[in-house]
């Protein structure tokens, strides 16, 4: 069996494997064709419903139970809180950048203590959104739930001790794990996942490089500004992905959700 065909899920191979093998035997495909096969295998893993009618369609807006709907409403409220947390995050850094200049034996620096409540609040609200993600994510998104859990613990710890990088790294790693797995399981769109991962990774690199004594990637750019701007989308994505609610409740005599209680998916 062609090694790349093995990348496809078993159920998929059972249905299309022979045909695909036959096709590959008839014609040689270059590097582009090989990459296309890998991309096809990823797609097949993301969409098991294509060959397994019993698998849930991740893109479907299936009716939900009344209880599930109420849970999703709670998650939505947490998501709205997270969006507010994004504002608190930006405010925290503005306050820190404008703190009083202190001169002591170590030299002069800005005292950012006044920003701590905003920083703590922003992280608590980010954690609230991650609790919302735990509520909203389907059971099959197990890795995404682990990422959410790790991040929701690390976020407030980091705000209490922002000079300890490990909490921040666990937070960011958890969020990246959440973004990748939620996309993989169809719970997040590719756009949402990229919006989470791209600024996180690039912001981390841009901020860490000067701290390691290396010349900055973008000369003259304040690492603090990089951190603030690149991490702000985290609140937006975590909160934003909680806002949409299903439009139909199953086994509900009224059928559709009363207007005002949902946002179209």
């Amino acid at each position, binding site marked *: 069996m062609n090694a790349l065909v093995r990348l496809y899920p078993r159920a*998929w191979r059972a*249905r*299309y494997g*022979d*045909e*695909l*093998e*036959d*096709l*590959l035997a*008839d*014609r040689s*495909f270059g590097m*582009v*064709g090989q990459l*296309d*096969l*890998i*991309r*096809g*295998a990823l*797609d*097949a893993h993301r*969409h098991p*419903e*294509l*060959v397994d009618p019993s698998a849930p369609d991740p*893109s479907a807006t299936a009716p939900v139970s009344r209880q599930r709907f109420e849970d999703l409403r709670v998650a939505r409220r947490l998501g709205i809180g997270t969006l507010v947390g994004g504002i608190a995050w930006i405010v925290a850094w503005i306050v820190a950048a404008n703190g009083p200049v202190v001169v002591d034996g170590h030299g002069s620096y800005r005292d950012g203590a006044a920003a701590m409540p905003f920083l703590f609040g922003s992280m608590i609200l980010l954690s609230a959104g991650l609790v919302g993600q735990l509520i909203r994510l389907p059971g099959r998104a197990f890795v995404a739930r682990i990422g959410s859990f790790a991040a929701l613990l690390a976020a407030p710890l980091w705000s209490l001790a922002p000079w300890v990088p490990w909490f921040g790294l666990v937070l960011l790693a958890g969020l990246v794990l959440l973004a990748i797995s939620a996309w993989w399981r169809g719970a997040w769109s590719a756009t949402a996942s990229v919006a989470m991962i791209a600024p996180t990774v690039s912001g981390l690199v841009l901020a860490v490089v000067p701290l390691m004594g290396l010349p900055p990637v973008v000369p003259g750019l304040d690492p603090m500004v990089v951190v603030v701007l690149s991490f702000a989308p985290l609140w937006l994505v975590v909160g934003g992905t909680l806002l949409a609610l299903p439009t139909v409740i199953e086994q509900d005599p009224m059928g559709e959700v009363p207007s005002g209680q949902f946002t179209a998916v």
Partner: protein
Amino acid sequence: MNQGMTEFGRFAEPTLYILVSLSDGPKHGYAIMTDVEAVTGAPLGPGTLYGALARMERRGLIEALEPEDRRRPYKLTALGVTTLRTQLEGLSGFTRLGLSRLGGTTI
């Protein structure tokens, strides 16, 4: 113009090519691939081809026939014919509109 195909995402264009390819009779994967390449000038990757075929089969646009050796031919369903006709009429209208607006414009 492309209404009804948006759910296919990146497979929308290959789906249309495959529908056209099957419009003159059943074909198996390899035959579809060479036919599409002859018509469009660009090869259809094997992953894309079978990603599109799986979606089309699930949506009821095509139907798999009994395999011949390891090759399984596909044919259009009634829904597939209707969908193809709708798409081509939309494209035809779009083409007419574009040509009429272009008129005798010269550069």
